[in-house]
């Protein structure tokens, strides 16, 4: 039997020590009427057969085409060392680092993770990661409500926030006496006039995304000043690679930062596992959910890493905790830490710029194609929206036959977006690939 080391002699010896006759006696406490009515599962297979089955199954997925598909999840480089280090079983088969003496490796890595995330976002405090960008955003909204002592009942959400994340925020907040107001999409940017008219003393927080879901980049400083005037929090969501060159949360004076960490050395993996970033100004740290690692000393005065401020968490505070979250996406946060270290201070700026430059080139070239126009009126970073003389489905399908994943169909997420597609280009795309892409677009429109 796989993974079970017991010999018949072992079992006999153990049953004798326990003082029962047969293994089945172990379950005598369970009355017959509670026993399983069925347990109809296939026979076990060797690992070789299982692997072959999955290899065949993986072949039924298509990951072969040149991808311009983004929308928050990108085809970025993953340095080999990220894989080699994160697949060390000392990391991936370890338990949660509650026993600090036996977990200094994980704890120090998380401390470095927190340090790097604070550097990237400009925030003063962060935790050891959340599940993903969407749930991090929902927790950020709940944080803003707690900071407002639950007296402020409104969460404003900008029209440019990832619409899938908005759905998650709405689900999380639906069970509380709160109002989630999502601004209507007017164009590719923030409807500042409408927004300013909605900001009042009942607003706990305003969530915005920069670059937004359409790829547009804006300066939110003025709005944030208006929010702070009524003691509302500004919650900024962003995509980590953009923070190499774009304004950080600190630069715009945002109070909470949230985002998804897939782009920092994690595989697309059909959506997971990735990890969520949640960071904030230091004064809000006691409202921050999740694990936090801090530095202290041991009895000999040696630097030691420990989980700290645990009195916020469910295993201590139960129903008074800041959240029910128990795990972090530890291994993904570790991968991100290794990724950021390998790319480094100067490399990160370069990487960020290269995404901007590639996408800008592609946008420029596509804008010259007859029949195609660029939807964005604002500047863009790594992606942008094209308007087509055909339906987005037709376009995506035709481009697929030319060996491209051409982008994201926005009509799947927005009304009246039938002919709009979100296109991105990462550092992995070459000029030759982009030229070929543009050539194919010309052929089909």
């Amino acid at each position: 039997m796989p993974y079970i080391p017991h010999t018949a002699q072992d079992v006999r010896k153990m049953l004798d020590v326990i003082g029962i006759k047969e293994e089945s006696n172990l379950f005598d406490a369970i009355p017959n009427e509670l026993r399983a009515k069925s347990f109809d599962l296939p026979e076990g297979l060797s690992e070789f057969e299982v692997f072959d089955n999955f290899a065949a199954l993986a072949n039924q997925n298509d990951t072969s085409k040149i991808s311009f598909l983004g929308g928050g999840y990108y085809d970025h480089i993953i340095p080999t060392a990220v894989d080699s280090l994160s697949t060390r079983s000392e990391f991936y088969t370890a338990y949660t680092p509650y026993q600090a003496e036996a977990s200094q490796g994980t704890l120090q890595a998380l401390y470095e993770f927190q340090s790097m995330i604070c550097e990237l976002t400009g925030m003063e405090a962060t935790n050891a990661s959340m599940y993903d960008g969407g749930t991090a955003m929902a927790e950020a909204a709940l944080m803003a409500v707690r900071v407002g002592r639950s007296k402020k009942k409104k969460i404003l959400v900008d029209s440019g926030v990832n619409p899938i994340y908005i759905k998650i925020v709405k689900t999380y907040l639906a069970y509380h006496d709160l109002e989630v107001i999502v601004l209507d999409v007017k164009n590719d940017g923030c409807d500042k006039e409408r927004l300013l008219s909605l900001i009042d003393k009942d607003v706990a927080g305003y969530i915005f995304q920069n670059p937004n879901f359409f790829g547009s980049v804006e300066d939110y400083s003025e709005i944030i000043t208006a929010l702070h005037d009524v003691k509302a929090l500004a919650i900024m969501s962003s995509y980590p690679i953009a923070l190499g060159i774009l304004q950080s949360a600190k630069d715009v004076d945002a109070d909470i930062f949230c985002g998804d960490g897939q782009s920092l050395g994690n595989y697309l993996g059909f959506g997971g596992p990735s990890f969520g970033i949640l960071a904030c100004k230091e004064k809000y740290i006691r409202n921050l959910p999740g694990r936090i690692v801090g530095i202290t000393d041991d009895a000999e005065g040696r630097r030691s890493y420990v989980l700290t401020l645990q009195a916020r968490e469910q295993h201590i505070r139960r129903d008074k905790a800041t959240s029910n979250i128990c795990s972090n996406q530890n291994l993904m946060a570790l991968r991100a830490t290794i990724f950021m270290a390998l790319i480094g201070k100067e490399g990160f700026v370069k990487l960020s710029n290269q995404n901007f430059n590639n996408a800008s080139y592609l946008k420029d070239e596509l804008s010259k194609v007859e029949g195609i126009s660029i939807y964005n009126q604002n500047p863009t970073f790594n992606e942008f929206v094209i308007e087509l003389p055909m339906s987005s489905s037709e376009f995506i399908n035709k481009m697929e036959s030319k060996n491209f994943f051409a982008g994201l169909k926005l009509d799947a997420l927005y009304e009246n977006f039938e002919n709009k597609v979100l296109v991105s280009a990462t550092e992995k795309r070459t000029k030759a690939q982009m030229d070929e892409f543009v050539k194919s677009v010309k052929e089909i429109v």
Partner: protein
Amino acid sequence: MSSTLFEKSHVGRKGINIPKQSVNDAPKLDASLLRDTKANLPEVSEFDVVRHFTRLSNKNFSIDANFYPLGSCTMKYNPKVQERVGGLAGLANLHPHHITNNQTHLVQGALSSLKTLENNLCEITGMEAFTLTPQAGAHGEMLGVMMIGAYHKKKGNNKRYVIVPDSSHGTNPATAAMVDYDVITVKSNKDGSMDFEAFKEVMSDEVAAVMMTAPNTLGLFNPAVKKICDLAHSYDALMYYDGANMNAIMGVVRPGDIGFDVIHLNLHKTFATPHGGGGPGAGPVGVGNKLKEFLPDLQVGFSEEKGYFFDTPHQNCIGKISPFFGNYLVLVRALVYMQTLGKEGMINTSKKAVLNANYILAKLKPHLKAAYPNQLCMHECVFSAEDLTKEYGIKAMDIAKYLLDFGLHAPTVYFPLIVKESIMIEPTETENIDTIDYFCQKMIDAVELAKSNPEAFKEFPKTLPISRPDETKAARSLNIRWQ
């Protein structure tokens, strides 16, 4: 030395090369949109990074190197083949927005794996349907309680409370609070189970749900569970099953057969996906007929003509709780495990998990006070160091720290909360008798040492990278990032 990468950084030192940019630079964005200063990431070489993290890894205990007798955590061996499958390019590089684009033809393999996993989970638990979207056990719990909330809302039920036993995991009451329910805690009886009479007393029309773990965190199976289900249902309260301890009862009991309405499983426990040092987990949720219509957005459908497709959510669907199919690559690993085990393997897994726990209980109870000495346990057993604390000043934590010096991870201590100085031990089925005998001997040695030389405990652990850290200082002079 525990220096951070920031201390090892040197201005101008480079890590890896990124691909060469093949287009000209675009005109710069307006300065008002750009950040003022560069993020101060470390400047280190690739080799610096490799050596740093390799050395860090050496400061960890891990299941590959150490026995973790951690109650309620199910630290079993994680088969290596899982990692090989999880790394298949056709899975690892698959873009989730093919879901948004509804390009089902690109993802048939992934959808078939999800459907197979769903079907397996239904059969293992006796539930009607599963969602694979929750990203962890606690996330699944929250979804479960949200669906319970949606059920009552639809029926116009006025419900305020969620009942939990005092032995419950902290996530249970924390979850109830996240969905805005007040928590009623019911005491356990002398046998360690939720007391039926006490339960009856607090049961009312205002109770939305009862959350139970079976076997519970004391390693005991509550024989009154069916009675509890029936009484709850008579008030239209729903029964929530916390599947954290499913490893004890595969093939023996199915929560769905007993009458539970909703259940979450921790795939990183029962189904052997790696703990990753604290995550990623996966917490699929199963439901009975009452809650099917509330399942979250994103379910896989199948028909002969269309193959696998994305089901249109029911109009009463509670919405989205994660962007796509949760931690997909974790789900895949769990399916790999199920397929290698098969039916007999799963049944045998639970048998051996329970056998190992009872063996420990039998061996240790002459030496250390067992919380429930007169009954067999399920997959875990609980002891109390209370007597040692009273007589010699040695606490459960002291014993935990002693074990670390022998390469044994600490058991779960101070949980469940209802046993004073509790030491909770779950060996799992994958440990052999030699390891368990060694562990038991070290536990007995610890008890003897407590009696003969309690002073000695102050210095444990003494062979690890650090001795006991000053946690008060960590919280008081907070240092959570390098500056």
